[in-house]
């Protein structure tokens, strides 16, 4: 392949990337809906295949798995939501009665005393932090107030997930029809590798996060930290974002401890618990769940997280690793395909 062809190919990839980013920004909700459906379809596809392998029609197999998975989530939400709402409203109450201000002021006093040799006297952190926290609760209330929109989004997502599960093969065939002949086998390989690595990563990280959530909740309950249940839930969700998620869960737990107890007494124990859970996750859970799925260098993952976070916030950070995993497969297969490529006809 000549240098000009390489430059042209690079420019084409950049142009496609720019169009994609622009499109995602323009029709964000629809893209988010499609991505969420695709995500659930990837996670559930092997279970549907397994049931289909038992001689049951694909549509019925999809319906069974779909009902079990989302029905299970609905039941869990039904039974756990009163408990969660109770903890959230209690926490909000604690913070609003001024304990938050007091807690932060205590921290300020402690740090000012420790850092006196640097000339630090008064930090004025309390007003800013209370402002951030009240903004956070306002956002939660805003989300709750747009419940109708969320329900509509969820219903649309459930419908498209079901049809993706049921008709994935036909959709794949339709997509392949648009691929030029010389890239036919490359396209089939790309689709298979994306299906395999992305599916494995998503299923792996889901199981990993669930495990981390359960272990964290149990450990925080053992050390008698208040609101252990919602912090455990937050740890599970934060775990979906590699590298940055676990420290933010540890920080949240320490923050809640300082605010509610007014002292740093529990913080070393909390940090110790999170370090032990992290080590167990790295040594035991992750090798069993997400290893070998998306092999990416840590620097690339962190860069992807930063770009994803900058463009689409938390959602962008969650989709960063799968997106880079998909790009890696496409670039790898295309570069191998282009290296082999010669004009399609020869006289």
């Amino acid at each position, binding site marked *: 392949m000549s240098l000009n062809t390489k430059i042209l190919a690079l420019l084409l990839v950049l142009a496609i990337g720019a169009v994609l980013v622009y499109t995602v920004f323009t029709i964000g909700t629809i893209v988010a809906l499609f991505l969420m459906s695709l995500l659930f379809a990837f996670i559930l596809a092997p279970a549907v*295949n*397994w049931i*289909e*392998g038992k001689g049951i029609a*694909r549509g019925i197999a999809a319906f069974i798995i779909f009902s079990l998975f989302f029905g299970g989530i609905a039941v869990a939400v039904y039974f756990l939501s009163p408990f969660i709402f109770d903890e959230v409203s209690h926490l909000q109450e604690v913070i609003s009665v001024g304990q938050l201000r007091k807690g932060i002021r205590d921290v300020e006093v402690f740090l000012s005393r420790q850092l006196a040799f640097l000339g630090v006297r008064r930090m004025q952190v309390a007003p800013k932090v209370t402002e951030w926290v009240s903004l956070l609760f306002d956002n939660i209330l805003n989300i709750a107030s747009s419940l109708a929109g969320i329900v509509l989004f969820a219903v649309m997502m459930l419908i498209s997930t079901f049809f993706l599960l049921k008709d994935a*093969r*036909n959709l794949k*065939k339709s997509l*392949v*029809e648009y691929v030029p*002949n*010389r890239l*036919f*086998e490359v396209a*089939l*390989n790309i*689709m*298979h590798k994306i299906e395999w690595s992305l599916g494995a990563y998503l299923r792996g990280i889901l199981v990993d996060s669930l495990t981390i959530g359960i272990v964290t909740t149990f450990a925080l309950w053992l050390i008698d930290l208040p609101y252990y249940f919602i912090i455990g839930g937050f740890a599970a969700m934060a775990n979906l974002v590699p590298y940055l998620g676990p420290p933010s869960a540890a920080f949240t737990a320490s923050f809640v401890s300082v605010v509610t107890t007014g002292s740093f007494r529990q913080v070393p124990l909390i940090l110790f618990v999170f370090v032990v859970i992290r080590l167990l996750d790295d040594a035991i859970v992750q090798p069993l769940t997400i290893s070998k799925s998306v092999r990416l260098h840590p620097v690339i993952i962190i860069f992807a997280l930063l770009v994803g976070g900058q463009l689409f916030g938390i959602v962008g950070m969650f989709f960063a690793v799968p997106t880079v995993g998909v790009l890696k497969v496409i670039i790898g297969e295309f570069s*191998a395909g282009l290296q*082999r490529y*010669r004009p*399609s*006809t*020869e*006289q």
Partner: protein
Amino acid sequence: MSGSFVWDNFYKKADGADIYALLGRVPIFDTLSKGELKLFEHILHRRVYAKGEFIFREGDTGSAMYIIEDGEVSLEIGKSRQEISHLANGDFFGEIALFADQPRSASALAFEETRIFGFSQHDLLGLLETHPKTGITVVMKLTRIIADRLHRATIENTRLLDTLIVHTAQ
């Protein structure tokens, strides 16, 4: 929904009856029932190649097998592009790629405008996962055909070796 352009195209079946008739004539599928052929049809990708267009080239890493629906395909080897086989409707080629990640041993090009069905190793593995009985029947048939070709190649090799020994002795 019939009569609706959108739905007719969304759920279009590519000349269903013709596909089953064609597949039924291919040795790999000749023992499959119509229901099983229908399952197999799900993994087939229809491609159209112009006259002289390469389907794959010698040395490429292959991953798909092809069945000729309508047209002719020439299998060629070497820089001199010596034709080693000329295939027509119902014939199939590239089956080794389903089992081994080896470079293609020959180039395949359309001798005229040709319609073919292709399916990949991954498609076949998917079929084995969702419909093991049908998948295994196809794999066993393929294995028999490859074993038969290997057997004939071994006999041919032995015959050539004997001829060479006789010529060397003379």
